[in-house]
């Protein structure tokens, strides 16, 4: 039966000799075991990415335009901050590099202490078995005051589930250390829907 792992069980998997579950840099295992609970805090990394304001009227999944969105990266030193103003959105990244084994899926969520102050951490939160890389964080400030995002601060938490069977959903070498927008994959259903509309128009004419 698939189950949610406790922090104690997560620690056991991290220190297991098979080395399949990795978190780098590794938090203090002793501290984690002391903390208890079922989630593991991750810290904010130093790279940020924003989408530039541009003359493009919109982002549309249909066509090349989605891929060519202008973007700007920022590197923020450890003793400095990125200030996220109310109503603004930025992609961040976890300091930790996470690698999941084939039998663990995970999801990332915000920390309530930040959520209550208006910082939304993540909307696409699922992490597949076999994932390897730093986690991109979709940070939005829906609060009233600017928020200083300091590299190294605890920013999110992850929960882990064992899967019923092993499943490797992604390559171990896909990981990034900086946030990237990623590709919007072409969707076959959407393509067929467009094609069918085109056909109907042709028939009518």
């Amino acid at each position, binding site marked *: 039966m698939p189950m949610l792992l406790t922090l104690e069980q997560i620690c056991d998997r991290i220190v297991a000799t098979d*080395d399949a579950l990795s978190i780098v840099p*590794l938090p203090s295992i002793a501290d984690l075991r002391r903390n208890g609970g079922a989630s593991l805090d991750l810290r904010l990394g130093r790279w940020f990415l924003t989408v530039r304001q541009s003359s493009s009227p919109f982002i549309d999944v249909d066509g090349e335009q989605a891929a060519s969105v202008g973007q700007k990266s920022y590197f923020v*030193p450890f003793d400095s901050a990125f200030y996220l103003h109310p109503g603004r959105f930025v992609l961040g990244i976890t300091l930790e*590099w996470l690698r999941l084994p084939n039998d663990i899926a995970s999801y990332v969520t915000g920390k309530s202490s930040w959520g209550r102050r208006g910082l939304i951490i993540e909307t696409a939160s699922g992490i597949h078995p076999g994932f390897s890389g*730093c986690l991109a964080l979709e940070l939005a400030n829906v609060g009233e005051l600017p928020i200083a995002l300091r590299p190294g601060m605890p920013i999110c938490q992850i929960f882990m589930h064992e899967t019923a069977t092993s499943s490797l959903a992604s390559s171990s*070498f896909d990981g990034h250390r900086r946030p990237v927008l990623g590709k919007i994959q072409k969707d076959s259903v959407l393509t067929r829907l467009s094609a069918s509309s085109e056909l109907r128009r042709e028939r009518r004419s």
Partner: protein
Amino acid sequence: MTTIGQEAFHPMPPDYFDYAYEKLISFASQITNLLASDFPIPTTRRALVAVQDIFSREIDRITSLRSDSTEIKKSACANANLKIRKFLPLLGFVLRSTNVRNSFEIAEPLTRLAKQLLKRELTFILSSEWDFSPLTYNFSFVELPDVILLGLPSFESANALMVPLVGHELGHWIWRDEDMESRLSSRLEDNIVNAFLDGWSAFQRIFGRDVDIGDIRTSMFAREIWTISFADSMRQCEEVFSDFVGLKLFGASYLHSFEYLTAPFTGEPRSREYPDMKTRAEFLSSAVDFFSFAFPSGYADHFENSTTENGPADRFLIEASDAATRATVQDLLDLTVEISAKRTFPSLSEQESEFCLTRIKSGVPAEGVEYIGNIINAGWSAYRDNTLLGPSSPGRRRIDILNELLLKSIEVAEFEVRMRDADAAYS
């Protein structure tokens, strides 16, 4: 301090003095604009503020000379032009240092390495060059004696595998700090004189003067010529020494990065101040043996010498300086060993490098690594093993995948150093 718009009205049309003043004000405005940039590495801003101070003083100086004699004003204006000419590339360099193409993760470890080797507080500015060769401006800015400006070629400035080339640039700084020219001068003079003596009849024929062979050191004519080769050879020795420092600091990865960027040769015409590429590779091969590094033989075979079509006089001078440099290589090797011990070069660890490689193989960055050189050596081992990291795809090359793992490993090492420093300070 003078600000725009405060200059006194005077009825004469503007002349070179006013022009110089205007140019200084424009230059200072450029600096002000640049200071408003996002600086990923905060020390860069401090260096720019130092330049701003230099130009504020220059503006004050020019302003104070308005009613001075023509000669003094002319000299001051020429000096202002010179300052602008000299510092303009630095502004471009600083601007490029804010570009996120650079891998900023390497800045702090390299600053720490530079401080360890040069034994003083330094500001290290990491940037990128629109130039094929890595560059350090160390000698150009006597006004900024403790600012190291290092630019990797822009198209490779993100590539962690190029980090060992920084070792060569640090070698130039050590060369200056150790006053190597004075230390080598007499030995190199002997070697140059010997090279001239070996080709004495050719020298007489090419330069058309009958000098007695016994007067080679005292004849004004002969001295004037062999000092040209002496100066060239001294510059060559500096390059060779800097290569040895790079090799000593980074081991095999220095050889790989040097080959990556320059082999078989750079396509430039032969410079008298640099040994030829194949020759440099041969010197590096002898250093590999001398430092007892493990590296496959045949390294120099990957390089070619540049083709040059010089006249007989130039050819003679180059051959003499090449011969003198070759005769000085053992001295340079001995000095590298002596200096590396004195300046406590970090030790490369095969064990640490192996550990990093194991982590890279499983697609995870390494933690607990003491020295960036070990991470980069593991990176080169992984890159040169085609069975690792999966095949390149159109969207992502093996080298990109590796770069992420190397730079994250470097960042993790930096994080760990900061944790240790803080624990030590508060314990």
